[in-house]
């Protein structure tokens, strides 16, 4: 049997314990042997590099060598479902949740969610923002009923862990150590570079409700008395997060 199906090729490529398919040869017609490892290696290295680019903070948190080992397990359990490497790693949060060796780092899945959101924001569609003056021009009753359309690049990520602090401490030199407790992160993309902002809990509730399409009045009521409406709206508009008021 000298024919090699792509199923056989794949099986041996993803599992080094499997024998190299018999129909593969070296230049003398002998079994391909070690030559097959070029493909095993290329696939593992290529996908590992894609994951390293996608999750720089996770990589710093667990260290280079550990991340490579983790990526090796991930890529065999979750090979890409599409040729768009910019989307590869979407199952990383769930994978980390169930990955025994990182049980002592329970914040990793949420940090991975934040990194995925930042990457999605980077590749999201462009959209022309409206300004806070557009909001101010509304008559009072229309203001109360106003709903926002958010730019495609805006994301909100909430966690019971201090994910903003962890992200900043690992991505920016001289950043303070992360605090404790839950954090909500708003991601905006004024031009091309996504920016994570730490929100207060009331501002996060308000923003989440507005992103769901609720009115200003409803979102303010949900956020409660602790909401600094002026500051929250100013940030959304100066960051170009709102593309339409209706």
């Amino acid at each position, binding site marked *: 049997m*000298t*024919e*090699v*199906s*792509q*199923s056989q*090729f*794949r099986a041996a*490529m993803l599992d080094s314990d499997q024998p190299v398919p*018999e*129909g*593969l*040869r*070296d*230049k*003398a*017609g*002998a079994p*391909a*042997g*070690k*030559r*097959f490892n*070029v*493909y095993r290696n*290329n*696939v593992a290295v*290529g*996908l590992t590099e*894609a994951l390293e680019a996608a999750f720089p903070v996770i990589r710093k948190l667990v260290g280079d060598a550990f991340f490579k080992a983790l990526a090796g397990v991930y890529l065999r359990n979750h*090979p*890409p*479902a*599409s*040729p*768009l*490497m*910019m989307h590869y790693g979407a199952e990383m949060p769930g994978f980390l949740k169930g990955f025994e060796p990182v049980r002592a780092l329970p914040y990793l899945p949420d940090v991975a969610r934040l990194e995925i959101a930042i990457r999605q924001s*980077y*590749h*999201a*569609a*462009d959209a022309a923002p409206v300004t806070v003056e557009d909001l101010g021009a509304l008559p009072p009753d229309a203001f109360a009923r106003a709903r926002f359309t958010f730019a*495609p*690049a805006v994301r909100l990520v909430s966690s019971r862990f201090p994910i903003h602090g962890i992200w900043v401490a690992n991505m920016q030199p001289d950043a303070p150590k992360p605090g404790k407790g839950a954090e909500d992160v708003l991601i905006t*993309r004024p031009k*091309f*570079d996504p920016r994570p902002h730490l929100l207060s809990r009331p501002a996060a509730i308000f923003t989440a409700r507005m992103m769901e399409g609720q009115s200003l009045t409803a979102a303010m009521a949900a956020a409660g008395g602790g909401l600094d409406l002026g500051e929250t709206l100013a940030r959304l508009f100066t960051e170009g997060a709102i593309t339409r008021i209706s």
Partner: protein
Amino acid sequence: MFDVPPSHLPPLPGVGYKPQHYSAILADPAPVGWFEVHAENYMGDGGRPLAQLRALADRFPISVHGVGLSIGGEGRLDPDHLSRLKHLCDWLRPASFSEHLAWSTHDNQFFNDLLPLPYTSATLTRVCDHIDEVQDVLGRKMLLENPSSYLAFAESEMAEPEFLRAVSDRTGCGLLLDVNNVFISATNLGYNPRAYIDAFPLDRVGEMHLAGHDEDEDDSGAVLLIDSHGREMAEPVWALLDYTLARSGPKPLLIEWDNDVPDWPILAAEARRAETALERIAA
């Protein structure tokens, strides 16, 4: 039946575009004749990648080079991916679109590598059907690139140049001749690279690729060259390029450098060396 290779790239050196070189390219008064991008890196919805590509395309001819279509795959082509390619080509209107004689997807799993094919009549039929489909959907002819080989299939019935010629005959597609891949495959599989070039239908070639490789060895201690795209092109490959150009005439030449990517001046220097090779055949 075959008039002009289906590429509108100028017969000049071009360079594989890397976003980190964007400012240096725009600041360079005489950068290169054209740029090539990997299609899959420009399939997001917006942001910097597409904005930069649009600005680049305003100044230079662009070649769109796919690395994920899996033209040699046993399964059908991914219709979603094909429509993304169409969207990109309709938006950008590139001077050329090319893909690989390889497979990279199986059962909806993508391996991010160019995997080898046996050269049989069954493979030929499948590859031609897929290329017909691509050319129908895109509404243009494409170029198909020869792979770098590390092993051979016992079941193969024909040599690679013969196989590629048949694909081009049946589908009308042009060919992308990767000169470094020819040298790698010839070394790894024990044939003469010049004989490969002699057998290759050079009139179908719309573009050539130039790149560096690494050296390893196989179980028997024989040299095994690895297509690494991480350094300057090796001297024997420059000689093979001269041999090829002397027979093909001027062609668009691409410098590919995808790993350990250097600063722009190093790439520009490789492109100048390619320009010298083109000037030699014009003289």
